[in-house]
């Protein structure tokens, strides 16, 4: 049994693919169901710090890719092989849904709210999926590629008439 | 003469107070390598406040601001200014000590009625700080009263002008030194500027005062500056024969206050209280004990 992290990962999880991205970072691609177990495994093996959760809209393949970036606290109890680990998973674009990672990493709560608000990915079991930044409602979440900002700006902000006195010409 | 004095002294105090405010802004600017506003800038600010139409939160809001300014004006009527000593037979220093709590009370009423937590926090800090510097201040004032065995400030000033000024005589030098230690707190200058901390509580009790209310608050602030300094000059520096010399002495005290103001960051209210109740109170207490022992 090889001692490298990638080896151990593949030994445990059958449906993941690992790859090195430079010597300091390991990329792991997992299926939506196996994301949580992998996160737990990585956390136990020393990568206790979830840096961020982000999302990529692969509109041509009709998929949404949720990316978790983990790293280890320097000088932690377990000697870690990599500086950071990038865990990716793909979900279908029209019904994007994923289990929430709050139980493993509570810090994921605002990131998941942001992704829900801006990309429309639903996180199962998230306590508060309420808007985080945006003031107004949007039919298409604004960070999706099919959201046409210019057309939106035209019909929302363009329609605001200038403040003109009746007597003054426009 | 007395009626004349009722009109002149508030105006004189106001003019001197505004000059002090202008001076302090320019003094601070020069320390920060800036040119700073002209001397009459506070006058321009007050004129601008008067012409602005602000909001009122109710009758007590107006009454509080007016009461606060009236409190300061009344104290000015009781304070000797140079050679002129008003209202001789009316209770002297004790009444001044009492009148000095009228102005914070008025501002507290206005601030409370403004229904804004910033002003309420500012008021609770103002009273806590007032309690802080009153402990040494009362010890000092009592030492001076016991030393000259009179509660009329005019007699104290006359006695000091006859002999040495207060701070030069032996037992009172301790009280004088303690007074200098708490002078920034009495004037509300930087290390103890916890009450109108613009960054923390958006200028405390003044958070909701705009327009003419702010004008009255600024005038009261100018008068408070005048009262704080003239009380020190009268009690510790023997007043002066004519108003001009009195004004010069006040300038020296103001300069001392402003240098301290420029050099220190703002303390937290606990730190201010801990400071005020440690060394200044000890020195003032020893001063009072000495005065009582030697005086006997």
């Amino acid at each position, binding site marked *: 049994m090889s001692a490298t992290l990638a080896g151990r990962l593949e030994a445990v999880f059958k449906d993941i693919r690992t790859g090195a991205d430079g010597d300091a970072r390991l990329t792991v691609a997992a299926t939506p169901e196996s994301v949580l177990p992998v996160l737990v495994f990585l956390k136990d093996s020393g990568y206790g710090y979830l840096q961020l959760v982000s999302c990529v809209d692969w509109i041509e393949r009709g998929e949404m890719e949720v990316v978790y970036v983990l790293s280890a606290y320097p000088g932690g109890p377990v000697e870690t092989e990599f500086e950071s680990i990038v865990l990716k998973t793909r979900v279908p674009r029209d019904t994007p849904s994923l289990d929430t990672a709050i139980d493993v990493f509570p810090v994921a709560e605002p990131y998941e709210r942001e992704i829900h608000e801006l990309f429309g990915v639903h996180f199962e079991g998230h306590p508060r999926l309420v808007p985080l930044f945006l*003031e107004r409602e949007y039919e298409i979440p604004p960070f999706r590629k099919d959201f046409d900002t210019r057309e939106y700006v035209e019909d929302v902000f363009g329609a605001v008439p200038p403040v003109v006195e009746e007597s003054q010409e426009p | 003469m007395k009626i004349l004095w009722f009109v002149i002294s508030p105006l004189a105090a106001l003019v001197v107070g505004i000059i002090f405010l202008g001076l302090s802004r320019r003094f601070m*600017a020069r320390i920060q390598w800036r040119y700073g506003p002209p001397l009459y800038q506070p006058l321009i600010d007050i*004129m601008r406040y008067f012409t602005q139409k602000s909001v009122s939160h109710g009758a007590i809001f107006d009454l509080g601001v007016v009461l606060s300014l009236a409190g300061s004006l009344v104290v000015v009527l009781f304070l000797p200014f140079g050679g002129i000593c008003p209202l001789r037979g009316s209770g002297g220093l004790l009444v001044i000590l009492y009148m000095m709590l009228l102005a914070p009370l008025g501002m507290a009423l206005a601030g409370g009625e403004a229904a804004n937590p*910033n002003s309420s926090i500012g008021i609770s800090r103002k009273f806590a700080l007032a309690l802080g510097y009153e402990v040494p201040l009362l010890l000092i004032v009592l030492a001076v009263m016991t030393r000259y065995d009179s509660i009329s400030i005019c007699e104290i000033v006359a006695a000091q002008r006859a002999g040495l000024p207060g701070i030069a005589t032996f037992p009172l030098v301790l009280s004088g030194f303690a007074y200098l230690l708490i002078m920034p707190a009495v004037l509300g200058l930087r290390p103890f500027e916890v009450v109108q901390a613009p960054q923390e509580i958006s200028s405390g009790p003044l958070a909701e005062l705009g327009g003419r209310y*702010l004008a009255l608050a600024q005038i009261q602030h100018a008068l408070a500056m005048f009262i704080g300094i003239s009380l020190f000059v009268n009690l510790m520096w023997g007043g002066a024969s004519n108003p001009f010399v009195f004004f010069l002495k006040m300038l020296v005290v103001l300069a001392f206050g402003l240098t301290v103001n420029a050099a220190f960051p703002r303390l937290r209210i606990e730190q201010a209280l801990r400071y005020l109740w440690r060394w200044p109170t000890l020195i003032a207490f020893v001063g009072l004990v000495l005065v009582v022992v030697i005086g006997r």
Partner: protein
Amino acid sequence: MDRNQLVKWLEAPAKMSHKYSLHAVYFCTGCGIIEVPPVITARWDAERFGVLPTATPRHANLFLITGYVSVKTLRAIIRTYEQMPEPKYSVGFGSCPINGGMYWDSYNTIKHLDRYLPIDGWIAGCMPRPEAIFVAVTHLWTLIEKDMADGYKRYRRDYAQYRANQERVLGELEWPPLFAAGEDV
């Protein structure tokens, strides 16, 4: 800079006092606020002209709306502008409040600020330098001199339109309309 002409002080003290005591609300609405500290400290010293930052809108008569105006910040800007005592002046600082600037096509920023608030003066530039602020202040002086800095009057007169635009973008506002319809100037 006619501050030392006593005649003008005697003729129109109110106008002169407004010109030479411009206290700006220290409210950092956008990226432009980084230019204000150098203006008010030793390097440029705005206090020479009587310009000071204040903590609350109640003390102020100048409102520098610095940098892009996001939809969420517009709510606070309107609230702060309404809480300033009249007469008050507002200056759009930087290109974003003018026409949206580099965020012209962003879903989250306000494009034309003067459709929601009356603006008395503009300072062009993507974060204009402190000297530009002083130029703006001098222009504001001339505007006040000629009684053209009447943003607060326009706000009072056309409040219905301003309020409608505000509600169009922000939805329902938490405070009642400031003026009843058609207030006198």
